């Protein structure tokens, strides 16, 4: 029982990491309607930009995170503006977009590898000793990760429900043509969506790196299909679905790590993805017209 509760504690941390990433991917998918296979590479960009700002440029760690995360957001906007969006407007094909983002992931991964090498890196922060919280025990950084994820989820929620931008994004997600003729500036909304997707990817990458302690350029891509599993489990393009999917996958991974074998946590995520695709491919919260 003690072990089980401990696993749930770890599961909550993994779920928090996963939630940041999944919401970022799902948000962009909802608005632009194609899957970004370069998302794993964007996670790594966030991790390594933060590492550069912190270790190479000696910024305080929090400031380094802000710079790294914003940098990832800006890179995502640039990618959309100069590569993906022109493609969407020139060649209206899902095939093209998937291949282009897949190719982009290859380019970004290898650029990172040239810049940073293949070795493992660490952030210059102490892990801290575990704190007891009822039946759970967390390190300080794990508590911060959960806190960051909760705040980010609330911010995303408020943004989607209360602001004009969020309403426009939801409108585009429901029906892009209708949104466009209703006077929504779809290009600006797309830009902001990529900014948010990039920021969440960067933040997700950083918390993943903090949680895993050491990281390399391939760490982001290794996470990519776990994110897909969470997003598809919740319902692709659905923000709250992505949160739910992240929670379930995170818990399942950590509980299986304790009771089966920690080497096979990713296989559990894949198994869930497979079962979901076989019995309910539209996801727990189905979006109309997305599956």
């Amino acid at each position, binding site marked *: 029982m003690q072990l089980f509760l401990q696993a749930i504690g770890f599961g909550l941390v993994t779920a928090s990491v996963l939630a940041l990433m999944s919401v970022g991917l799902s948000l962009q998918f909802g608005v632009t309607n*194609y899957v970004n296979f370069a998302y794993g590479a964007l996670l790594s960009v966030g991790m390594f930009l933060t590492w550069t700002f912190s270790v190479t440029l000696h910024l305080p760690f929090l400031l380094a995170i802000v710079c790294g995360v914003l940098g990832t957001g800006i890179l995502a906007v640039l990618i959309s503006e100069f590569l993906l969006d022109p493609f969407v407007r020139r060649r*209206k094909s899902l095939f093209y977009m998937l291949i282009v983002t897949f190719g982009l992931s290859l380019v970004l991964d290898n650029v990172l*590898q040239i810049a940073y090498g*293949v070795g493992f890196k660490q952030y210059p922060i102490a892990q801290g000793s575990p704190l007891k919280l009822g039946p759970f025990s967390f390190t300080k950084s794990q508590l911060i990760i959960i806190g960051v994820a909760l705040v980010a989820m609330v911010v995303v929620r408020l943004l989607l429900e209360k602001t004009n931008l969020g309403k426009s994004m939801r409108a585009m997600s429901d029906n892009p043509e209708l949104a466009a003729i209703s006077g929504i500036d779809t290009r600006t909304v797309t830009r902001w969506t990529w900014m948010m997707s990039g920021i969440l990817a960067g933040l997700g990458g950083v918390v993943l790196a903090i949680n895993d302690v050491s990281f390399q350029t391939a760490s982001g891509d290794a996470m990519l299909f776990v994110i897909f599993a969470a997003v598809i489990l919740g319902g692709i393009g659905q923000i709250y679905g992505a949160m739910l999917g992240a929670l379930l996958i995170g818990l399942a991974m950590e509980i299986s790590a304790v009771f089966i074998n920690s080497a096979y946590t*990713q296989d559990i995520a894949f198994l869930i993805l497979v079962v979901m695709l076989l019995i309910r491919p539209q996801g727990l919260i189905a979006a109309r*017209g997305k599956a």
Partner: protein
Amino acid sequence: MDLILSYVATILVFFFIYNIFTVGLNIQFGYTGILNFTVITFMAVGAYVSAVFAMPKAVPGSGVYYVLGLSWPWPLAALMGVLASGLLGFIVGFIALRRLRSDYLAIVTLAAGTLLYGLAGNYNKAFDGWAGLFNVPQPFGSITNWTPTSYDVFFVVMSGLIMAVAVAFANRLYKSPLGRAMRAVREDADVVESFGKNTFKIRMLAMVIGCVFVGIGGVLTIAYITALSPAGWTSGETFVVWAALLVGGRGNNWGSILGSLLVAVVFNEATRYLPQMPQYPNLIPDIRNIIIGVLVIAVLWFRPQGVLPERKASFLELPRKASSNPTSSIDLAFETEVAK
């Protein structure tokens, strides 16, 4: 002289093998519109399975572990490798092809590839982990006393013949009723469905046939180089096949062959002679991957039909509006997919 001959032989064998990969992917993507983002995994499965059937039992205590080790004659072992590749294609297709959106298959292939890569590396009891298999017996190597050179010539002829049969089969398939149905599914699956065709079955067939092709290439790969480790089948390798297909011209097998000549042989061989920098051993492979990625994106932007485009049957068409001018009817698939 022998050295040159053996070099030419190596290049020819790789050219033939890449032709088989590219034509296999062409059946999946070019004919049917299936996005297989882990081509190279099917190569690895074919290679590994054929190897463990052909190799003798792993020596206990040698630190090398692999399953089976049945010392089967090569043709039978090769058949098992090809079957394993097709079976994996069937499983992956069965999971993902029932949905119409092509992203699901792309995601599942990528996930399966990542997973199998990690499993093959971390679980070292099956295929010797990250070290990989080596000393794989060469086909017919023990029957007669080949000299290395005559064996190279023999292998060139054998792989050339296998490739020729594979390409002939693919060309025949293209014109067959099944091939027409595949191309129709690529253009508009709903229309095909409304004519009473089972699109799931058609797509499954394309998936499995393509994977069998890639498996054949994998069997030949490990038979020729006699070793394979996970480092030999990273996602960058998948992209070489994609680049070959897209540069050459999807939907056209001659395009696939031209593409694998240009990308897999000329480009890959040319970058091999770039000066190595000892302090950055990964620099050249990294740059090669970047160029391959950029090449694919550039081809899709400037000439998405490839160097040798598919020749499509042309019918009387009404003039299109100037605003919407899709270069290929594959483009229309996006709009129909989105509309669902």
